[in-house]
């Protein structure tokens, strides 16, 4: 069994009230928002999720006026976890606002809220934020990366939702990648944020899924599109230092997608002359995958690991804490081969976030 401090690459953060975000808007935008609701509701919910008896047993950490998360949502201490990378909940959808100006303002407000309420409270474990960007306005998104990317506790840029209806390998997003590599942070893509019915993009081919169950099966299509696009459009030739963390979306789609991509690469070189390596090589060098939503069936996992043993260097623990349907530390320890544990629990993520997260364990005199 692995020992040593753990990095959790997916800890959910959310607001207790949208007023928390509005308070971080500039005065004029606070006036503009007034009493309007700013949240965008996720279109797919688990059965019964609106029932009050489920509200306290799952969800996200919520900031409140006190330091740290709401005690009612704490799932017990996790003494092994030294570092938590925060992934927004409701805020994931804000970049999709049809009003692009408001989307810009809200992303900035969320980032300021994250810095002020989540990263500055001196608590242990160390928390690391994700920079939410209005990716439907790439130049403004890049400006936001440069504005807050220098904060030492901002660990990555988060590409959530897809307001341009273009896969993330499209040159439209290059300003964001340029800014991210300039400030020296990687990028994360979170599954699920492509699901909004009000945007041009869709989670699944053909049409939006009809039920939550269908959505859960098809949600990986968005990841497939983005990964194949990022690789196939030569983004990593243009930005060789760029790295991507995939948050959610299971593992089973990875090997078949890369097998087929490698096949096409061998045959159709003239079609993609800017690609100089096999797609699977780009994936190994530039992508990491958080374990949240990883398959539960042991036989399926074993087959997946056999089909794509490079996952040993790619998998990073992401529990989805405090959600009770995420991967606990103990579950994750039992799910992978023992030789993979050190990589899964810290080494792979430490290397990925090396520009921000120290490689050493939390020291007693560290604050904030």
């Amino acid at each position, binding site marked *: 069994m692995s020992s040593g401090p753990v990095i959790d690459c997916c800890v959910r953060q959310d607001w207790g009230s949208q007023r928390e975000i509005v308070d971080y808007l500039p005065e004029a935008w606070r006036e503009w928002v007034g009493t309007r609701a700013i949240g965008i509701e996720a279109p797919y919910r688990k059965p019964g999720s609106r029932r009050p008896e489920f509200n306290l047993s799952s969800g996200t950490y919520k900031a409140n006026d006190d330091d740290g998360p709401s005690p009612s949502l704490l799932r017990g201490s996790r003494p092994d976890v030294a570092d938590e990378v925060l992934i927004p909940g409701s805020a994931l959808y804000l970049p999709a606002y049809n009003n692009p100006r408001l989307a810009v303002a809200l992303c900035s407000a969320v980032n300021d809220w994250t810095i002020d309420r989540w990263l500055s409270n001196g608590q242990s474990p160390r928390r690391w934020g994700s920079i939410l960007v209005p990716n439907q306005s790439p130049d403004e998104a890049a400006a936001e990366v440069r504005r807050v990317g220098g904060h030492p506790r901002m660990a990555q840029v988060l590409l959530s939702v897809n307001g341009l209806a273009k896969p993330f390998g499209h040159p439209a997003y290059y300003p964001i990648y340029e800014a991210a590599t300039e400030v020296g942070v990687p990028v994360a893509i979170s599954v699920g944020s492509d699901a909004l019915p009000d945007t041009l993009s869709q989670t699944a081919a053909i049409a939006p899924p009809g039920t939550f169950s269908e959505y859960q099966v098809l949600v990986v299509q968005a990841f497939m599109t983005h990964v194949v696009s990022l690789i196939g459009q*030569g983004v990593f030739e*243009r930005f060789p230092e760029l790295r991507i963390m995939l948050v959610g979306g299971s593992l089973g789609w990875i090997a078949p997608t890369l097998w087929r991509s490698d096949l096409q690469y*061998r045959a159709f070189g*003239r079609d993609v*002359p*800017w690609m100089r390596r096999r797609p699977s090589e780009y994936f190994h060098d530039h992508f990491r995958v958080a374990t949240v939503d990883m398959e539960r069936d042991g036989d399926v996992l074993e087959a997946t690991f056999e089909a794509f043993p490079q996952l040993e260097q790619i998998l990073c623990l992401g529990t989805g804490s405090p959600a009770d349907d995420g991967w606990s530390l103990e579950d994750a320890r039992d799910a992978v081969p023992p030789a993979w544990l050190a990589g899964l629990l810290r080494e792979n993520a430490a290397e990925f976030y090396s520009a921000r997260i120290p490689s050493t364990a939390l020291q007693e005199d560290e604050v904030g």
Partner: protein
Amino acid sequence: MPKTRTALGPLSRFRDRELSSVVVDDMELAVVRWSERVFVMRNRCPHQLGPVCEGIVVSWLGSRGGSEIVVDDNHPVVVCPWHRWEFDLPSGAALRDPKVRLRQFPAWVVEDQVFADLTGRPPTEPEQ
């Protein structure tokens, strides 16, 4: 000049920047003329045995780094018609899988006649 040589025909028979087919002792050969250079190979793609001479020969198109693409007119590439596999000339190596190679033969031009040594191992450069 190698002792074993087979005449494949006058240079004028082979159109510049095109693939041509020649049969010698029941062996089908594909011949590429690239300006004043000639390349001779088996008319059989190592991928899935497609007829190479029914493909095309083009200038190398690729990248030397970054996202810009470049073309090298001095570097011919044969493209198989079946699956579009590309083969570098003169090495015969598949561009995207160098361990897969076209079977090539030494070829040269003497007094406007094209010759090939069909007995030897494929060279990396054709002999002139």
